[in-house]
């Protein structure tokens, strides 16, 4: 028994290093000014080089207005918040219905609500671009938020459905017997009780939106920059261990990091995300 625990710890430690450690050189790189082949550490640091260059570099560049990071960050936030709110708003009644009712064709509905996760985004994206051009919403916030709904909505429905399933219908019935109407019972009893789940759904929706590249890339047509599309351009053109790219990577990773910490705190359950990733379907 002792040995197996030891080796489990070793496996997990190695994994933690493999997945966590690659971020470290980027932290170093983000503060570098010059990091030539074949040096293992930067030859010059950002703070040494300040004032010697005609324009800002590394973090200084990222935080200067010319980098476009500000608008990209704001765009990502705005689109992410709008998408997750809209997705939760649309998913809420559907999830409640799926959790509380049995009806004919329910499996078909559940399947349909999941398909967007499986169908290639490129297939949806190109058609969507043409459609949005027709509707005049290509290259707009509206267009991008609507596009982001496609990958987000299935997860929102899924998460909220399992949240409602975990809430015993007893509580609503108690409220009803105590004189609450259906709406009152939902607003006064159900909603406050599912609040943590709702927050998780919102966070998850935001995270998906903040990570989407292809749909943003297609619909925005380069007009609206988000963090992922900005990072794409930096990777495409930058050298390995480039300070600016490294800094941007860290910024782009920030929302995920926040999500991870928050969802751990909220659910107290390190694998809570797993339960939202469609696991239930496999059990059917």
């Amino acid at each position, binding site marked *: 028994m002792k040995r*197996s625990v030891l*080796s*489990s*710890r070793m*496996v*997990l430690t190695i*994994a*933690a290093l493999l*997945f966590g450690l*690659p*971020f470290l050189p980027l932290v170093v*790189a983000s503060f570098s000014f010059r990091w030539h*082949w*074949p040096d*293992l550490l930067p030859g010059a640091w950002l703070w040494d080089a300040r004032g010697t260059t005609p324009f800002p570099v590394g973090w200084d560049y990222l935080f200067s207005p010319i980098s476009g990071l500000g608008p990209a960050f704001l765009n990502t936030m705005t689109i992410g918040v709008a998408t997750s709110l809209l997705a939760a708003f*649309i998913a809420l*009644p*559907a999830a409640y*219905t799926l959790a509380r*009712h049995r*009806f004919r064709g329910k499996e078909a509905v559940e399947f*349909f*609500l999941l398909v*967007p*996760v*499986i*169908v*290639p*985004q490129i*297939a*949806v994206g*190109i*058609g*969507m671009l*043409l*459609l949005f051009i027709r509707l005049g919403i290509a290259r707009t916030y509206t267009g991008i938020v609507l596009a982001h*709904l*496609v990958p987000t*909505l299935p997860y929102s*429905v899924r998460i909220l459905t399992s949240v409602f399933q975990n809430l015993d219908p007893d509580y609503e019935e108690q409220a009803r017997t105590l004189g609450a109407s259906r709406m009152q019972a939902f607003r006064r009893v159900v909603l406050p009780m599912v609040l943590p789940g709702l927050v998780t759904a919102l966070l998850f929706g935001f995270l998906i939106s903040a990570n989407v*590249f292809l749909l943003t890339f297609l619909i925005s047509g380069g007009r609206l920059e988000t963090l*992922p599309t900005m*990072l*794409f351009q*930096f*990777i495409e053109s930058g050298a390995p*261990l480039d300070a600016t790219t490294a800094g941007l*990577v860290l910024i*782009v990773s920030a929302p*995920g990091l926040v999500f*991870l910490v928050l969802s*751990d705190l909220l659910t107290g*359950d*390190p*694998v809570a995300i*797993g339960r939202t*990733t*469609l*696991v239930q379907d496999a*059990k059917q």
Partner: protein
Amino acid sequence: MNKARRRQLSIFLGLAPALSVLTVLFVGPLALALIQSLGYAPIFGVREFPTLRFYTAVLGSTRFRLAFWYTMLYALVPTVLSTIFGTWLAVAARARMRGVRFLSFFVRLPLVVPYLVGAALVVALFANGGLVARVLFAVGIIQNTGDFPRILFSAGGWGIMLVYLFKQVPFTFVVVSSVLAGIGPELQEAARTLGASPWRAFRHVVLPRIFPGIVTSSLLVFAFNFQSYEIPLLLGPGFPGTLPVEALRRFQLPTIARRPEAMAYVMIITTLSGGILFLYLRAYRRWERSRGGV
């Protein structure tokens, strides 16, 4: 009867927003792509509906066949590897010991960052001037950047697959962990008291219970890899691209009249991906039935 009608109405009203939104935003674009691929695309000056011309053009090209095989390769290898390693990790992380939460935090980190972050990390580490090459130089294994094997931008797709692994081992880890959390350690412990070794207890008691979760996660992983765009575009060879990359290239062709080929491409990608997933699920269901499952 009035009550039954009211119930139906409330079910309908509950589902209507989600279903209509997805119909417009998801089915609509797919239907549009289908119609255009069959030759009705006035905006590209194509009005030949119905024709299979664009499909034959795509399917007949060497480019397509190459793209297909590379797409399969890049999708399948990481799926198999991440399923194995992710499951292994999940089982290891279940041991009751201190620090699991702390360590698993790092394992879960890649899950919540964009694939592009993974791409940036792989570039930083495995580019020819990257950190791994520098370490190899420092210890004297290679003499210059040219000696380092081409991991990125090569048809072998090592860079692409590394990014997938970076994201998907954690994904499998989290999914399988949550299934494991649901079944509890009692059965495994019972098996151990009955004389099963750890491996046999896992193989005969735990694995059958978590298998559905493994199937789902591998299915999602494969589906994602098969349609991924930005990673093969950034880290793959220029020619051939994967199917999604080729599809978008068709869409950007200067000859506008050939653009419906892009639509044919995306319909083929959708069909292939759906078909493969369907076959996989069917094989799994058969296997499950043969074991006396439902």
